[in-house]
Protein backbone atom coordinates (compact mmCIF):
# COMPACT_ATOMS: atom_id res chain seq x y z
CA UNK A 1 0.00 0.00 0.00
CA UNK A 2 1.02 3.57 -0.58
CA UNK A 3 1.14 6.14 2.20
CA UNK A 4 0.86 9.90 2.42
CA UNK A 5 4.64 10.36 2.45
CA UNK A 6 4.58 9.22 -1.19
CA UNK A 7 2.39 12.13 -2.36
CA UNK A 8 4.28 13.92 -5.13
CA UNK A 9 5.96 10.75 -6.39
CA UNK A 10 6.38 10.89 -10.18
CA UNK A 11 4.46 8.03 -11.83
CA UNK A 12 5.93 8.27 -15.28
CA UNK A 13 5.88 10.59 -18.24
CA UNK A 14 6.18 10.27 -21.96
CA UNK A 15 4.68 11.06 -25.32
CA UNK A 16 1.98 9.37 -27.38
CA UNK A 17 1.09 10.00 -30.98
CA UNK A 18 -2.61 10.12 -31.78
CA UNK A 19 -3.19 7.64 -34.63
CA UNK A 20 -6.38 7.88 -36.65
CA UNK A 21 -6.66 4.10 -37.05
CA UNK A 22 -6.63 3.77 -33.27
CA UNK A 23 -9.31 6.46 -32.99
CA UNK A 24 -11.52 4.53 -35.43
CA UNK A 25 -10.97 1.30 -33.48
CA UNK A 26 -11.91 3.13 -30.28
CA UNK A 27 -15.01 4.57 -31.98
CA UNK A 28 -16.03 1.04 -32.97
CA UNK A 29 -15.42 -0.29 -29.46
CA UNK A 30 -17.66 2.33 -27.85
CA UNK A 31 -20.36 2.09 -30.54
CA UNK A 32 -19.76 5.65 -31.72
CA UNK A 33 -22.13 6.61 -34.54
CA UNK A 34 -21.27 10.32 -34.92
CA UNK A 35 -19.39 10.47 -38.26
CA UNK A 36 -17.19 13.33 -37.03
CA UNK A 37 -15.30 10.71 -34.95
CA UNK A 38 -14.92 8.21 -37.77
CA UNK A 39 -14.74 10.02 -41.10
CA UNK A 40 -12.20 12.79 -41.75
CA UNK A 41 -14.43 14.65 -44.21
CA UNK A 42 -17.25 14.66 -41.64
CA UNK A 43 -14.79 15.85 -38.98
CA UNK A 44 -13.77 18.77 -41.21
CA UNK A 45 -17.43 19.56 -41.97
CA UNK A 46 -17.94 19.75 -38.20
CA UNK A 47 -15.13 22.33 -37.98
CA UNK A 48 -12.31 20.05 -36.82
CA UNK A 49 -8.87 19.98 -38.51
CA UNK A 50 -8.86 16.16 -38.26
CA UNK A 51 -10.43 13.32 -36.32
CA UNK A 52 -10.94 14.57 -32.76
CA UNK A 53 -9.64 12.69 -29.74
CA UNK A 54 -12.88 11.65 -27.96
CA UNK A 55 -13.61 12.98 -24.49
CA UNK A 56 -12.34 9.98 -22.51
CA UNK A 57 -9.65 8.66 -24.90
CA UNK A 58 -6.85 10.62 -23.22
CA UNK A 59 -6.99 8.04 -20.41
CA UNK A 60 -6.15 5.32 -22.95
CA UNK A 61 -3.14 7.20 -24.31
CA UNK A 62 -2.06 7.84 -20.75
CA UNK A 63 -2.07 4.13 -19.95
CA UNK A 64 0.01 3.47 -23.10
CA UNK A 65 2.51 6.07 -21.93
CA UNK A 66 2.50 4.60 -18.45
CA UNK A 67 3.15 1.09 -19.79
CA UNK A 68 6.05 2.36 -21.91
CA UNK A 69 7.55 4.60 -19.22
CA UNK A 70 9.18 1.77 -17.32
CA UNK A 71 7.43 2.91 -14.13
CA UNK A 72 5.34 -0.01 -12.84
CA UNK A 73 2.61 1.94 -11.06
CA UNK A 74 1.14 -1.13 -9.38
CA UNK A 75 4.58 -1.88 -7.91
CA UNK A 76 5.43 1.71 -6.95
CA UNK A 77 2.03 2.09 -5.29
CA UNK A 78 2.16 -1.48 -3.92
CA UNK A 79 -1.29 -2.31 -5.29
CA UNK A 80 -2.70 -5.73 -6.18
CA UNK A 81 -4.13 -5.64 -9.73
CA UNK A 82 -6.79 -8.23 -8.87
CA UNK A 83 -8.15 -6.06 -6.05
CA UNK A 84 -8.22 -2.62 -7.60
CA UNK A 85 -11.17 -0.82 -9.10
CA UNK A 86 -11.42 2.54 -10.80
CA UNK A 87 -13.24 4.74 -8.27
CA UNK A 88 -13.28 8.15 -9.93
CA UNK A 89 -12.11 9.83 -13.12
CA UNK A 90 -12.20 13.48 -14.00
CA UNK A 91 -11.11 15.60 -16.92
CA UNK A 92 -10.48 19.34 -17.17
CA UNK A 93 -10.34 20.24 -20.85
CA UNK A 94 -8.30 23.21 -22.07
CA UNK A 95 -8.10 22.55 -25.80
CA UNK A 96 -8.98 19.85 -28.30
CA UNK A 97 -6.53 17.21 -29.50
CA UNK A 98 -6.64 15.60 -32.94
CA UNK A 99 -5.27 12.69 -34.94
CA UNK A 100 -1.65 13.44 -35.77
CA UNK A 101 -0.98 15.30 -32.51
CA UNK A 102 1.89 14.21 -30.31
CA UNK A 103 0.77 14.51 -26.72
CA UNK A 104 2.90 14.56 -23.58
CA UNK A 105 1.60 12.98 -20.38
CA UNK A 106 3.14 13.68 -16.98
CA UNK A 107 1.65 11.83 -14.02
CA UNK A 108 2.13 12.39 -10.29
CA UNK A 109 0.69 10.74 -7.20
CA UNK A 110 -1.45 13.51 -5.70
CA UNK A 111 -3.33 11.85 -2.83
CA UNK A 112 -3.51 8.70 -0.70
CA UNK A 113 -6.26 7.95 1.82
CA UNK A 114 -8.24 5.11 3.39
CA UNK A 115 -11.93 4.66 4.13
CA UNK A 116 -13.94 2.16 6.20
CA UNK A 117 -11.13 1.67 8.70
CA UNK A 118 -8.63 0.76 5.99
CA UNK A 119 -10.88 -1.73 4.16
CA UNK A 120 -10.75 0.61 1.16
CA UNK A 121 -7.41 2.13 0.15
CA UNK A 122 -7.47 5.02 -2.35
CA UNK A 123 -4.73 6.50 -4.51
CA UNK A 124 -5.18 9.58 -6.70
CA UNK A 125 -3.03 10.22 -9.77
CA UNK A 126 -3.03 13.50 -11.69
CA UNK A 127 -1.79 13.78 -15.26
CA UNK A 128 -1.00 16.97 -17.13
CA UNK A 129 -1.46 16.63 -20.90
CA UNK A 130 0.22 19.02 -23.33
CA UNK A 131 0.51 18.97 -27.12
CA UNK A 132 3.48 19.25 -29.50
CA UNK A 133 3.22 23.05 -29.36
CA UNK A 134 3.50 22.98 -25.57
CA UNK A 135 -0.17 23.98 -25.17
CA UNK A 136 -2.10 22.67 -22.21
CA UNK A 137 -4.66 20.14 -23.49
CA UNK A 138 -6.14 18.69 -20.31
CA UNK A 139 -5.67 17.54 -16.75
CA UNK A 140 -6.73 14.00 -15.88
CA UNK A 141 -7.40 12.80 -12.37
CA UNK A 142 -7.75 9.06 -11.71
CA UNK A 143 -8.69 7.56 -8.36
CA UNK A 144 -8.10 3.86 -7.84
CA UNK A 145 -9.43 1.89 -4.88
CA UNK A 146 -7.95 -1.33 -3.56
CA UNK A 147 -10.39 -3.65 -1.77
CA UNK A 148 -8.81 -5.17 1.29
CA UNK A 149 -9.74 -8.12 3.47
Amino acid at each position, binding site marked *: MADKSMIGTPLGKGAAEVEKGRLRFFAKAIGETNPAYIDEAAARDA*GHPGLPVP*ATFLVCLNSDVSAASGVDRMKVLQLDL*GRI*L*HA*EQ*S*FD*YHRMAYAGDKLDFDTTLTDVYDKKGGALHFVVMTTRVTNQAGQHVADLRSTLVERRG
Partner: protein
Amino acid sequence: MQAPRYDDLKVGDKLPALALPAINRTTLALYAGASGDHNPIHIDIDFARKSRMPDVFAHGMLSAAYLGRLLTNWVPQTELRNVAIRFTGITHLGNQPTCTGEIVEKFEADGEKRVKVAIQCRNQFGEDKLVGEATVALN
Protein backbone atom coordinates in the same frame (compact mmCIF):
# COMPACT_ATOMS: atom_id res chain seq x y z
CA MET B 1 -24.02 19.94 -35.17
CA GLN B 2 -26.32 22.67 -33.88
CA ALA B 3 -25.45 23.30 -30.23
CA PRO B 4 -28.32 24.18 -27.90
CA ARG B 5 -28.45 27.87 -26.97
CA TYR B 6 -27.81 28.93 -23.38
CA ASP B 7 -30.92 31.13 -23.26
CA ASP B 8 -33.14 28.27 -24.49
CA LEU B 9 -32.09 25.96 -21.65
CA LYS B 10 -33.37 25.82 -18.09
CA VAL B 11 -32.47 23.90 -14.96
CA GLY B 12 -34.26 20.54 -15.08
CA ASP B 13 -33.98 20.15 -18.86
CA LYS B 14 -32.89 16.66 -19.87
CA LEU B 15 -30.36 15.63 -22.49
CA PRO B 16 -31.46 13.10 -25.12
CA ALA B 17 -30.75 9.74 -23.44
CA LEU B 18 -28.28 7.27 -24.93
CA ALA B 19 -29.35 3.60 -24.69
CA LEU B 20 -26.67 0.99 -25.30
CA PRO B 21 -26.92 -2.69 -26.20
CA ALA B 22 -26.23 -5.33 -23.53
CA ILE B 23 -22.57 -5.73 -22.57
CA ASN B 24 -21.12 -9.04 -23.76
CA ARG B 25 -17.65 -10.58 -23.88
CA THR B 26 -17.04 -9.22 -27.37
CA THR B 27 -17.78 -5.69 -26.14
CA LEU B 28 -15.11 -6.13 -23.47
CA ALA B 29 -12.55 -7.70 -25.81
CA LEU B 30 -13.00 -4.85 -28.28
CA TYR B 31 -12.73 -2.21 -25.58
CA ALA B 32 -9.61 -3.89 -24.13
CA GLY B 33 -7.96 -3.80 -27.55
CA ALA B 34 -9.01 -0.29 -28.51
CA SER B 35 -8.39 1.29 -25.12
CA GLY B 36 -5.13 -0.50 -24.36
CA ASP B 37 -6.52 -1.46 -20.94
CA HIS B 38 -5.53 -5.13 -20.89
CA ASN B 39 -6.31 -5.74 -17.22
CA PRO B 40 -7.25 -9.45 -17.30
CA ILE B 41 -10.08 -8.89 -14.81
CA HIS B 42 -12.14 -7.67 -17.81
CA ILE B 43 -11.28 -10.39 -20.33
CA ASP B 44 -10.04 -13.54 -18.57
CA ILE B 45 -12.62 -15.44 -16.50
CA ASP B 46 -9.90 -17.55 -14.83
CA PHE B 47 -8.15 -14.42 -13.58
CA ALA B 48 -11.47 -12.91 -12.49
CA ARG B 49 -12.31 -16.02 -10.43
CA LYS B 50 -8.87 -16.04 -8.82
CA SER B 51 -9.63 -12.45 -7.83
CA ARG B 52 -12.85 -13.70 -6.20
CA MET B 53 -15.14 -12.21 -8.83
CA PRO B 54 -17.82 -14.49 -10.32
CA ASP B 55 -16.94 -13.47 -13.89
CA VAL B 56 -15.29 -10.76 -15.93
CA PHE B 57 -16.98 -7.35 -15.82
CA ALA B 58 -16.95 -4.16 -17.87
CA HIS B 59 -14.19 -1.58 -17.79
CA GLY B 60 -15.44 1.49 -15.93
CA MET B 61 -13.94 3.60 -18.68
CA LEU B 62 -16.16 1.89 -21.27
CA SER B 63 -19.23 3.31 -19.57
CA ALA B 64 -17.36 6.59 -19.11
CA ALA B 65 -16.90 6.64 -22.89
CA TYR B 66 -20.67 6.13 -23.24
CA LEU B 67 -21.18 9.18 -21.02
CA GLY B 68 -18.77 11.04 -23.31
CA ARG B 69 -20.98 10.06 -26.24
CA LEU B 70 -24.07 11.29 -24.37
CA LEU B 71 -22.42 14.70 -24.01
CA THR B 72 -20.93 15.02 -27.50
CA ASN B 73 -24.20 13.89 -29.09
CA TRP B 74 -25.69 16.95 -27.39
CA VAL B 75 -22.97 19.63 -27.77
CA PRO B 76 -19.80 19.83 -29.85
CA GLN B 77 -16.85 18.46 -27.89
CA THR B 78 -15.09 21.84 -28.23
CA GLU B 79 -17.61 23.17 -25.66
CA LEU B 80 -16.82 20.55 -23.02
CA ARG B 81 -14.93 22.12 -20.10
CA ASN B 82 -14.97 19.45 -17.41
CA VAL B 83 -16.24 15.94 -16.78
CA ALA B 84 -16.05 14.26 -13.36
CA ILE B 85 -17.26 10.70 -12.88
CA ARG B 86 -17.63 8.37 -9.91
CA PHE B 87 -17.86 4.63 -10.54
CA THR B 88 -20.54 3.51 -8.10
CA GLY B 89 -21.19 -0.06 -9.19
CA ILE B 90 -19.81 -2.81 -11.36
CA THR B 91 -21.30 -3.16 -14.83
CA HIS B 92 -21.80 -6.90 -15.36
CA LEU B 93 -22.18 -8.97 -18.51
CA GLY B 94 -25.77 -8.67 -19.73
CA ASN B 95 -26.22 -5.19 -18.30
CA GLN B 96 -27.82 -2.71 -20.70
CA PRO B 97 -26.44 0.75 -19.91
CA THR B 98 -28.51 3.87 -20.45
CA CYS B 99 -26.86 7.28 -20.11
CA THR B 100 -28.89 10.29 -19.05
CA GLY B 101 -28.20 13.89 -18.14
CA GLU B 102 -30.05 16.81 -16.61
CA ILE B 103 -29.13 20.47 -16.37
CA VAL B 104 -28.60 21.39 -12.73
CA GLU B 105 -27.08 24.87 -12.93
CA LYS B 106 -26.63 27.82 -15.29
CA PHE B 107 -23.79 30.21 -14.54
CA GLU B 108 -21.05 32.38 -15.98
CA ALA B 109 -17.34 31.73 -15.46
CA ASP B 110 -14.14 32.77 -17.29
CA GLY B 111 -16.24 35.07 -19.50
CA GLU B 112 -18.39 32.18 -20.74
CA LYS B 113 -21.99 31.12 -20.27
CA ARG B 114 -21.92 27.59 -18.91
CA VAL B 115 -24.27 24.89 -17.75
CA LYS B 116 -23.59 22.13 -15.29
CA VAL B 117 -25.12 18.78 -16.17
CA ALA B 118 -25.66 15.88 -13.76
CA ILE B 119 -24.92 12.66 -15.66
CA GLN B 120 -25.66 9.02 -14.88
CA CYS B 121 -25.17 5.63 -16.44
CA ARG B 122 -27.70 3.03 -15.20
CA ASN B 123 -28.41 -0.56 -16.13
CA GLN B 124 -31.82 -1.94 -17.11
CA PHE B 125 -32.67 -2.54 -13.44
CA GLY B 126 -32.29 1.16 -12.64
CA GLU B 127 -29.04 0.65 -10.72
CA ASP B 128 -26.61 3.58 -10.94
CA LYS B 129 -23.23 2.45 -12.23
CA LEU B 130 -21.62 5.82 -12.90
CA VAL B 131 -22.66 9.22 -11.64
CA GLY B 132 -21.03 12.53 -12.31
CA GLU B 133 -21.12 16.06 -13.56
CA ALA B 134 -20.07 17.84 -16.70
CA THR B 135 -19.60 21.52 -17.42
CA VAL B 136 -20.34 22.80 -20.89
CA ALA B 137 -19.93 26.29 -22.40
CA LEU B 138 -22.74 27.56 -24.61
CA ASN B 139 -23.54 30.71 -26.58
